[in-house]
């Protein structure tokens, strides 16, 4: 069992979300969706809590969480980096860009740096194809990037 304990107010909020959905196991995906907004991810404790409320095994909840790419079990970094993998960006080299981010940060897609500063994810087209390849960090859009820019951006944020 992991040592992390959920803060009390989060427990209250998770319970409230479950109640709003009538503690109905059929609502699991919607519940997880809302619960993920609370902390930006779905820690083990939270999944166990939800499983208990809905009266279903934790393995079911975990199965759903790992099935949908939308759900995540890792806390996002202070600067969540999302590299666009849409067609336009892909054609213009977003894969190389992504590789460079991985190399510089020393993490894989879906992971967070140990200091909690950066996390790395992929996105589908963000609708800024004119700027391809595009990276979003938080709400900020960075466009027309080359692999070398990865290091500069990260340094500018440190």
């Amino acid at each position, binding site marked *: *069992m992991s040592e992390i304990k959920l803060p009390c107010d989060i427990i209250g909020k998770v319970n409230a979300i479950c109640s709003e959905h009538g503690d109905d196991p059929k609502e699991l995906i919607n519940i997880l969706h809302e619960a993920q907004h609370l902390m930006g991810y779905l820690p*083990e404790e939270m*999944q*166990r809590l939800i*499983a208990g409320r809905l009266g*279903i*095994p*934790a*393995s*079911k*909840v*975990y*199965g759903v969480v*790992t*099935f949908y790419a939308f759900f995540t079990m890792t806390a996002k970094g202070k600067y969540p980096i999302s590299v666009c993998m849409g067609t336009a960006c892909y054609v213009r080299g977003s894969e190389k860009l992504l590789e460079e981010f991985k190399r510089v940060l020393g993490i894989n897609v879906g992971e967070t740096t140990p200091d909690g500063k950066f996390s790395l994810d992929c996105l589908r087209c963000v609708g800024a194809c004119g700027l391809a390849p595009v990276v979003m960090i938080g709400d900020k859009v960075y466009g027309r990037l080359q692999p070398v820019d990865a290091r500069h951006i990260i340094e500018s944020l440190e």
Partner: protein
Amino acid sequence: MEPRQITLQIDHHFVTVPEGTTILDAAQKIGIDIPTLCHIDLKGTCIRNTPASCRICVVEVEGRKNLAPACATKCSDGMVVRTSTLRVMNARKVVAELILSDHPNECLTCPKAGSCDLQSLALRFNIREMPFNGGELSPRKREYTASIVRNMDKCIFCRRCESVCNEVQTVGALGAIRRGFNTTIAPAFDKMMSESECTYCGQCVAVCPVGALTERDHTNRLVEDLADPEKTVIVQTAPAVRAAIGEEFGLPAGTLATGKMVAALRELGFDYVFDTDFAADLTIMEEGAEMLDRLTRYLGGDKEVRLPILTSCCPAWVNFFEHQFPDMLDIPSTARSPQQMFGSIAKTWWAEKTGIPREKLVVVSIMPCLAKKYECDRDEFKTGGNPDVDYSITTRELARLIKRANISFTLLPDMEFDMPLGASTGAGVIFGATGGVMEAALRTVYELYTGKPLGNVNFQAVRGMAGVRRASVDLDGFELKVGIAHGLGNARHLLEDIRHGRNEYHAIEIMACPGGCIGGGGQPLHHGHSEVLYARANALYKEDAGKTLRKSHENPYIKMLYQEFLGKPMSEKAEQLLHTHYFNKSC
């Protein structure tokens, strides 16, 4: 209302079936055996997995463009089905080849070889080369628990285990996680089974068609112990084993092979061949006494006493309530399982009698059960680190060992168990079938409570395969109400009721496995045929009916054990050697 009958044609044969029947079942009815892989439906039990995902069972239906999965397609009136056209055979072969392309080539060393459904299909479809190369296999988890070995490289994702663990047992220890090539079957948070709520009932192992879930094998260890001249190796055999082991040697299901099994164990070199049935009789003495004690106190108005009393001879059931009902640890009987009672008495009373020191004595059990392997490992059943039962092997492992030792099982003469720990009554024998423990208890409790001899020892109402059964027995004016549940899902319903104060019973028997131990996770594989379970249960009732002594308290060696050693049931010594306590293991 009776369902409408419809007639269809399968491979030029006409067949009439009730509306709603699948093509698979209709074909089976006329002896056409359509191959299946993901599908399992153990009729008359709740074991079922019908995802229609593998497409091994496809057939041609006239007027339909694409092939239809026979396991999921309902028959319709006038339907014309072909199960063996070239198109069908090729389609099935391609499906099998695709499954094999992502499967390790390890039949030579696989524990499931010889009884693996995928291997049989490859043989049946005449697959002689691998046309698809799936490239690298994704390395998935391997795990050795005390009872079960999990090798996810071999999983074909039929999800039978998931259905059984979630729907039938309501444990929810196993489920599919992730997607695409990374899919695997695992406990929550991809933990180990040993860190999950798994009860080790082994029902997932009993339905896994391949070698992904198998039993932890102890036969090599046993061979070494048997060859060691320093050690005295004794064996106990659970009731359900004798009713099933013959199947491994081509005998029809339901053949009672007690005598041949004893002979085979002697041939293998065991120094003494004893019977768990002896310990089953002993269990009745202790559990029965506890039941009577709680009952009389309850009827006398003692507010401390909680009813119903629950049986505790199934270790998977014990694991289940320790994980799921930690608030109710005081209601199950404290009596140990027969396996552990046997070990405890063998390493004390019998060892003292024969002068064999504990460390030179190896107690092995032959069980229909995987949870018993884990049970041997529990610390409370050890003295100074030395376990009461050293290890347990399954019916399947014993069969393999007999073959390995070149013993022609069917040609063996019938032999008798050794005394004193091989003596048993009919009551001990029926422990192997659901309802049997309760029936055995009733035979003894009736006589002890009323002081009168019991005329008819057969309690038909507690027998059978219904998931939950209830009966009431007249104990000289007092109406004793008993319940029986098998399968942990059924047990859960009863327990939830009790938790919420809705209880109608004085005593309840619970077995984790559908059918009781005859359907245990260590038995010869049923391959989806429930007739096998019925036949095994009948065999046990037959053995019971053929015994002169049919009540546990009439077993002369049990009497001797109490006279010489234990005193009386629930004496201090009996409490210490034959009873246990439970732990809160909730996650």
